[in-house]
């Protein structure tokens, strides 16, 4: 049966795109209560498709590839899923399912009405976001990826201002301007690459760029595209739009945005530097990207410490955690990177980065949803006044705590495994300064989470008055997602071989002059 899966793998890629788009259109046309039902029915099917793609990649031990409509690049558009894409698709599906289950209580059409604005918008946008994310993770054509990025922006912006308050409108508008600047810079880079090499297909571009002496256009294009994508990923110093946008959105939307939306543009930065550009150039860019990442870790951590509101704290924590992702560039690109035998002789930093992507997605979605439950039951999310909430909502706080454990990098958790692999890689390459940043970032994370947990778990004072009771099933969803981020750390390292399929990272830095 598995070999059938591999044989039909290319059709699975198309299905991963068509399914959310078809559901989106159906939900849009039928509207009302149907929008929610259609979205909820799509969740398990989408998860099954993602699992099937991952299984096909793993079993076939090769990336899946398809040319849409039988048109080969450079005229046609190709889709491709390697190990990392498969993992991102799977993570997206898992977070989508959890958020969908969680959001049911918040986005129900009120009884007595046939349709209301917020639920209709939320369920259709959830599907739109899913379609855009899958398109980014599967895309192989730079222009197609631009369209996918824009779809992502158009789905994410209305999610930010779903409640229509002036503050969230302003946050959404600012987010939109940053995102548009980012995508137009990306498009400019794509135009230059097409002008210089006559193709937009990532595989063909890599072959043509690698074959010739590097044209200045390629360098400028890579710089423009990276700058644009950094604005969308909210790496320091272009992070200004993220905290108000992610903190102002409804909890379920914040979870989607913080866990998934910023990862899409990061994924493209990875692809540009490791799949398109030649290795030597990647090494030069790597130090700059990682320096910005290090600044993000420290800056985001310090600002998170100073926040008065829980959701703002979690949003600043996202900025810091994004910083960790950028540390993988110098560690993977370094010529001294020692391969790990458990990982098919690929550098540990690559696996560490992928684990950070996945564990942060699960942990951050869980934290935002836990914060949403706390805010809904208390009527506010001021950290100072959270005293005793641990007694009122023990399960929510437990989920928040273990998700935080993964962010801090305490063993045993996915976050620990990710940061440990990065530390190990930094030590092996002799780039000890990144080790200091990783450790300092962990301490800062511990400090700002301690601020929340110490207040929430205090036994003094009366139990807080709950404005609204919390639904137990929603607490289970949050706990489940938090547990996934922790359990990732207990999986043996060798089972992460999926991450390496389809990319020759073991060769990076080895064959250089």
């Amino acid at each position, binding site marked *: 049966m598995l070999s059938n899966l591999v044989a039909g793998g290319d059709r699975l890629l198309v299905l991963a795109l068509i399914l959310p788009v078809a559901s989106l259109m159906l939900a849009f046309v039928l509207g009302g209560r149907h929008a929610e039902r259609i979205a909820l029915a799509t969740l398990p099917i989408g998860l099954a498709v993602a699992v099937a793609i991952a299984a096909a990649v793993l079993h076939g031990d090769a990336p899946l590839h398809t040319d849409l409509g039988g048109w080969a690049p450079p005229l046609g558009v190709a889709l491709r899923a390697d190990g990392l894409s498969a993992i991102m698709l799977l993570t997206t599906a898992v977070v989508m399912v959890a958020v969908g289950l969680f959001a049911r209580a918040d986005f129900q059409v009120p009884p007595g009405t046939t349709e209301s604005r917020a639920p209709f918008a939320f369920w259709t946008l959830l599907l739109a976001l899913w379609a855009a994310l899958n398109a980014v993770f599967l895309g192989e054509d730079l*222009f197609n990826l631009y369209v996918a990025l824009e779809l992502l922006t158009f789905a994410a912006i209305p999610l930010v201002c779903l409640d229509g308050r*002036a503050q969230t*409108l*302003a946050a*959404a508008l*600012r987010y939109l*301007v940053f995102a548009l600047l980012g995508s137009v810079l990306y498009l*400019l880079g794509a*135009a230059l690459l097409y*002008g210089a090499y006559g193709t937009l297909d990532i595989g063909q571009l890599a072959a043509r760029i690698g074959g010739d002496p590097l044209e200045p256009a390629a360098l400028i294009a890579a710089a423009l595209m990276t700058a644009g994508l950094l604005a969308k990923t909210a790496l320091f110093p272009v992070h200004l739009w993220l905290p108000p946008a992610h903190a102002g959105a409804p909890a379920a939307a914040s979870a989607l945005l913080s866990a998934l939306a910023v990862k899409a543009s990061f994924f493209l930065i990875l692809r540009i530097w490791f799949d398109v550009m030649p290795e030597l150039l990647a090494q030069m860019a790597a130090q700059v990207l990682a320096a910005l990442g290090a600044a993000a870790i420290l800056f985001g951590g310090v600002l998170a410490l100073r926040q008065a509101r829980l959701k703002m704290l979690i949003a600043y924590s996202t900025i810091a955690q994004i910083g960790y992702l950028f540390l993988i560039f110098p560690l993977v690109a370094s010529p001294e990177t020692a391969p790990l035998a458990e990982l098919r002789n690929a550098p540990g930093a690559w696996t560490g980065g992928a684990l950070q992507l996945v564990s942060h997605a699960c942990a951050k979605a869980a934290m935002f949803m836990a914060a949403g439950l706390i805010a809904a039951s208390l009527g506010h999310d001021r950290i100072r006044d959270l005293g005793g909430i641990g007694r009122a909502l023990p399960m929510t706080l437990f989920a928040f705590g273990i998700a935080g454990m993964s962010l801090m990098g305490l063993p045993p958790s996915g976050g620990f495994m990710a940061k440990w692999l990065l530390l190990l890689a930094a030590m092996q390459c002799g780039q000890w300064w990144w080790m200091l940043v990783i450790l300092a970032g962990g301490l800062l994370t511990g400090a700002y989470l301690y601020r929340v947990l110490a207040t929430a778990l205090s036994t003094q004072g009366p139990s807080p008055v709950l404005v609204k009771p919390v639904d137990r099933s929603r607490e289970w969803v949050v706990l489940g997602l938090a547990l996934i981020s922790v359990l990732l750390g207990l999986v043996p390292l060798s089972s992460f071989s999926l991450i390496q399929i389809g990319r020759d990272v073991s060769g990076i830095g080895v064959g250089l002059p």
Partner: protein
Amino acid sequence: MSSVTLFGLCGAALVGLGLYGLIVLPGALRRIIAFNLLGSGVFLLFGVIARRGGGVIAGTGSDPVPQALIITGLVVAFAATALAVALLRRLLQETGRDDWDEDERSDR
């Protein structure tokens, strides 16, 4: 000066103007317009690349692929502008302000 060079320089000038406006100018509407200028510059650049040829179909004098990309890009840029203007209108209705800058302090 050949037409390709002339249009290339025009595209570069539009990109420069747009970038300047997007980063420096106050007021959300100005930035939305600047984004459109920037986008037009990029589309013009695609046009120049199409005119110059040498892409997918060599020897035909001009290359149809960038033209197709421009059309798609125009649709996306139009949708983006519409979304931005709609958001701005709503913000104006709610607050009477036409920019997002002032509320940074009140958010705390």
